């Protein structure tokens, strides 16, 4: 169906909302299986099949089965939400086939909540409404208040969802699900009610900065690309900034080469992609998270956005939290939230050993010790301490792990991912690995530590692209904050 105007969008929205709402006749009950990557890998597909079979066999006509994407809390997967009309939704954790059968028989059919398998009451998309109404939704019966409300869990209530506002609520494969939650209204507004200048000005006013690493103002980037005259211009959504894959292709110019079918080598950045980018045309390259902020900013305005975050950095940042913590997953917090809040309250350290450091920003980032955990998660404060937010990797490391080994892990990664174009990165990272191997095997000397430090600085200063320039960060930051660990294992 072709949507021609706002009325068309609204029509789809209302129709979808009507289909989605529970009613007293056909759709009294709904089972939602959350099918993110972690969910599927933990067996969500089996669980879904089990529920489908149970519904078929029961011959009940008023049960709907839906799927959505990730809920963000990967360590509790597979997760299943059960809703019955006029009752509070219940989210079940670690669901397998046996539990699915029990949930079906006891909760869906007999209407009794299985608190022993329950994770929380309520839905993430309704947290704000629940908070306003003292932890309930009007018209919904609370079945078992021994189960925590979702708004009481720090993992959820300390987050601020802009980029991930629809997680767990829509099925990413169904476009109407997105339209039902205001999808494409911003596109309509931008195309029909705003011109290029006004759009760029709105993004400039919002203070949005690039979420891939350096934090360049997005509006400024757009302004630069809007200036050259050209029949064709490109926008690239960079979803390649992160650990896996051809790592170097997260670098803008390398990404352009790979899209052109070439080997993903970076080049000197001048001319900038905004002038000569993909196929030599003016190109805007934005990180996927940056772009995900655009629609809400267009819809709600730049003033709304500037109220979130810090003086210099507006909005939220997504982090992937992992390591020695209980709640492994994907979170979104206002910029300026402290590392402490994320590690202690949201992530919750695992019992048995204290957290001694976090590695921020993936292989290009740095390791920060616990005494700096009151630092706000923001571009400049982290940069001053030798690390970055980057694409949002955050790994909590406990006392049992060696900082030297972690540094070696990241440098080894950078060495194997180096594209080989420039010498400092290609040879420098390899030699850093050799020295770190020597130190880790117990055969290193104090001289080796000094050599490692010198080399790391040279690689940082002389590499061609951003990845080479940051490849030393794990070494430099661990040398800065955990030099004693290096010294303890050399002769």
């Amino acid at each position, binding site marked *: 169906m072709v949507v021609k105007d706002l009325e068309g969008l609204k029509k789809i929205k209302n129709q979808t909302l009507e289909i989605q709402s529970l009613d007293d006749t056909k759709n009294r009950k709904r089972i939602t299986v959350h099918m993110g*990557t*972690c969910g599927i*890998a*933990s067996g969500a597909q089996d669980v879904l099949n089990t529920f489908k079979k149970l519904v078929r066999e029961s011959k009940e006509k008023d049960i709907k089965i839906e799927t959505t994407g990730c809920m963000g809390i990967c360590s509790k997967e597979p997760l299943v939400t059960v809703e019955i009309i006029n009752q509070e939704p219940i989210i079940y954790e670690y669901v397998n086939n046996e539990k699915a059968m029990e949930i079906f028989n006891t909760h869906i059919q007999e209407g009794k909540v299985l608190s022993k398998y329950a994770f929380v009451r309520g839905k993430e998309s309704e947290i704000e409404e629940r908070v306003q109404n003292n932890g309930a939704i009007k018209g919904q019966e609370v079945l078992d208040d021994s189960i925590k409300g979702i708004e009481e869990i720090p993992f959820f209530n300390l987050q601020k969802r802009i980029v991930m506002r629809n997680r767990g609520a829509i099925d990413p494969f169904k476009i109407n699900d997105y339209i039902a939650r205001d999808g494409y209204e911003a596109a309509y507004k931008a195309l029909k009610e705003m011109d290029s200048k006004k759009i760029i000005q709105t993004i400039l006013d919002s203070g949005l900065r690039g979420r891939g690493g350096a934090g360049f103002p997005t509006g400024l980037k757009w302004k630069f690309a809007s200036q050259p005259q050209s029949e064709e211009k490109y926008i690239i959504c960079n979803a390649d900034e992160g650990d*896996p894959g051809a790592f170097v292709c997260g670098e803008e110019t390398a990404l352009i080469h790979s899209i052109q079918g070439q080997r993903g080598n970076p080049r000197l950045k001048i001319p900038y992609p905004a002038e000569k980018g993909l196929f030599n045309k003016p190109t805007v390259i934005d990180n996927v998270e940056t772009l995900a902020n655009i629609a809400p900013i267009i819809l709600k305005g730049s003033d709304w956005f500037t109220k979130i975050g810090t003086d210099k950095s507006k909005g939220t940042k997504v982090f992937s939290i*992992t*390591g020695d913590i209980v709640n492994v997953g994907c979170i979104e917090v206002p910029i300026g939230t402290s590392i402490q809040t994320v590690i202690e309250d949201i992530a919750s350290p695992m019992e048995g050993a204290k957290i001694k450091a976090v*590695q921020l920003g993936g292989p290009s980032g740095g390791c920060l010790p616990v005494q700096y955990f009151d630092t706000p998660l923001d571009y400049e404060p982290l940069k001053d301490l030798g690390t970055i937010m980057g694409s949002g990797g955050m*790994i909590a*490391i406990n006392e049992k792990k060696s900082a030297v080994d972690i540094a070696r892990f990241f440098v080894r990664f950078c060495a194997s991912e180096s594209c080989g174009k420039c010498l400092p990165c290609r040879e420098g990272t390899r030699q850093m690995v050799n020295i770190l191997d020597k130190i880790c095997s117990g055969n290193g000397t104090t001289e080796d530590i000094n050599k490692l430090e010198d080399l790391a600085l040279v690689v940082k200063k002389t590499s061609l692209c951003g990845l080479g320039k940051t490849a030393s960060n794990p070494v430099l930051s661990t040398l800065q904050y955990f030099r004693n660990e290096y010294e303890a294992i050399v002769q």
Partner: protein
Amino acid sequence: MLEEIQQLLGFVPVEVQERIAQKTGINENDIYGVVSFYSYFTMQPRARHRIQICLGTACYVKGGKEIAEKIESTLQIKLGENTPDGRFTYEEARCFGTCGLAPVLVVDGTVYGKVKLEDVDEILSRYE
């Protein structure tokens, strides 16, 4: 074109690269450059079963390294090698996006999460 060949043959040997160069007029070095750069392409045929040990950051800090060492000693094999009997190809992977399940081991596309050292033998024994 290279992607199709990789899917069809399971690898892109140098002879095939030479042939593509002849037919398309693209420099042989450029084709080799692309094949050797992206981990998606391999130049050697794979064994019957493909083991991928995740050594992404999350898995590494949660014990992926020890799992890798265990596989290496059990199968007497190093990363990137095939077992002599053609049973396993052993590769390193960088994150399957399932960090909640770390450490992760993938055999022929089946994901094994929260793998413990003592699970490794049993998992491998399922593949002959």
